[in-house]
């Protein structure tokens, strides 16, 4: 299947790697190994570890009081709230879409499937700025529905609905693209067995399919949520940057930074960096489960349908 994407952290269909040879494979001399490990680690420290450490160092540079004041100030709290709202709407919507798309694509063979798969990945290849722009073209004052919205006193752009829409767009493929390869790999046998035994569609979904894909689903939700809370470019275009009203956390960071309130900017940034670390830990833990689920036999001969581990 096509799995082109610009947001890669994905469960690569794990072929359980067998220990290929007990005999010692030809290896590089020790000094080459040490050199390569050294180069890799220096590169990763410079480009990954130092930026991460900087966020926390700068956040606490002026002391814990400044830090606490920055994250408990009312505009900061409003930005946290808006970020939670945006993610709280975008993640469930894309979750429902992901399940529906995965059910159709993985369980059925239909014309145009390949095209649909490519279209689902489309939002990953669109610049976030353009993702914001397209909604301005539709809902902005000069847009298709601009006048109609104004006449009915509704606001999408420079308001919360626009921010939510932009967030939905940039996180669109996450859940679908985790579920589809797993459900394709698992095949239809378990569901068909349940059907023959008289289960209804919803029963099949809740009792057979969902338990089989729950970890991949969670994995998709974790990635989707991380992106939803951290999105900057798309949200920036549609936000209007009204303090305390249409600023998400990343936008609030930008404002503080541009006002030279560096300690405060990094304090709010440290919350998002902490979220990123939590995301990485959860991702790591769930990844193990997804791999286990991919390898697990789907129907064990003796067990009843749906009773897969």
């Amino acid at each position, binding site marked *: 299947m096509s*799995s*082109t994407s*610009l*947001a*890669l*952290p994905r469960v*690569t269909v*794990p072929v359980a*790697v067998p220990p*290929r*040879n007990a005999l010692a*494979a*030809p290896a590089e001399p020790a000094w080459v190994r040490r050199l*390569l*490990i050294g180069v*890799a*680690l220096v590169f990763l420290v410079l480009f*990954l570890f*130092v*930026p*991460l450490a900087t*966020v926390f160092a700068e956040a606490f540079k002026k002391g814990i009081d400044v830090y606490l004041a920055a994250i408990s100030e009312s505009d900061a709290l409003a930005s946290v709230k808006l970020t939670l709202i945006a993610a709280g709407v975008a993640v469930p919507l894309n979750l*429902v*879409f992901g*399940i*529906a*798309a995965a059910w*159709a694509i993985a369980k*059925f063979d*239909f*014309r145009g499937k390949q095209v*649909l798969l*490519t279209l689902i*990945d*489309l939002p990953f290849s*669109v610049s*976030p*700025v*353009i993702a914001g722009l*397209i909604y301005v*073209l*539709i809902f902005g004052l000069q847009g298709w529905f601009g006048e109609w919205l104004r006449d009915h006193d509704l606001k999408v752009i420079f308001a919360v609905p626009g921010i939510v829409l932009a967030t*939905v767009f940039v996180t669109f493929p996450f859940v679908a693209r985790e579920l589809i390869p797993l459900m394709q790999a698992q095949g*239809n046998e378990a569901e068909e067995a349940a*059907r023959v035994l008289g289960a209804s569609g919803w029963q099949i979904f809740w009792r057979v399919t969902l338990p089989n894909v729950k970890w991949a689903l969670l994995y998709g939700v974790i*990635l989707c949520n*991380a992106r939803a*809370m951290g999105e*900057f*470019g798309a949200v*920036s*275009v549609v936000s209007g940057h009204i303090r305390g009203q249409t600023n998400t956390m990343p936008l609030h960071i*930008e404002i503080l930074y541009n006002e030279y309130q*560096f300690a405060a900017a*990094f304090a709010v*940034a440290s919350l*998002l960096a902490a979220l*990123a670390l939590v995301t*990485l830990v959860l*991702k790591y833990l769930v990844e193990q489960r997804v791999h286990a689920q991919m390898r697990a036999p789907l129907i064990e001969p003796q067990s009843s349908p749906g009773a897969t581990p």
Partner: protein
Amino acid sequence: MLLSRTLLRRHNVLPGFDLALGFALLYLSLIVLIPLSAAFLRTFALTWPQFWDTVTSPRVVASYRLTFGASFAAALVNAIFGLIVAWVLVRYPFPGKRVVDALVDLPFALPTAVAGIALTAIYAKNGWIGQWLPFKVSFTPLGVFVALVFIGLPFVVRTLQPVLEDVNRELEEVAATLGATRWQTFLRVIFPIVTPALLTGFALAFARALGEYGSVIFIAGNLPMVSEITPLLIITKLEQYDYAGATAIAVVMLVIAFVLLLAINLLQAWSRRRTGGH
């Protein structure tokens, strides 16, 4: 019922096809397809000469040069170091390897604005790294390159890892038995196997870098003609209420993104054939 009758290739006892596909198509159209087509339709408000003048004006061309140049250089650096990182993670045991492996995904998890201000602080004149460098990084085109290296880093590593894990070690033994040095084995046996994946990772990093905004604008300095990236130019035009101009540039970027998407699809198909599927 219409969908299942016209589209399904073979009978399937499972229910829910119409509901699932119907909802998926509706949602896809509303969120992605119709809004994206708005960008293309909007450019028809311009005549061809107007469109051409907008997308080839000197300031816009300068931004293409920076965006493409920095993205290409960053993807190249990521290809080289990504290969080393992936190789080390797959082949060599060392303490803390799991943590390092998990940390590779940091650029995906860390919001771009956070990465942007952190990199700017590090590479500023008095920053942790900037103070040791004899040249300026923050607020120059070099800063754009640094930010793009950061955000593109995981693509090459994560594309290469599974392929490297699958390389048949017996081939290497055969090469060694036949008298090849380790370096020859790498160049003639391993490298050809991973080339498609390496190119895919490069293309993914490059495509991501072209559209990147959040991490770049903080460190770039955003001087017109010098350190202004194309996505920023779109925003600048929008803020001047030049919707047609913003959309024209966006359409150019979209077309390039779609061409890259196609290229990446072809590369991945090639990669799958080369490594024998999955």
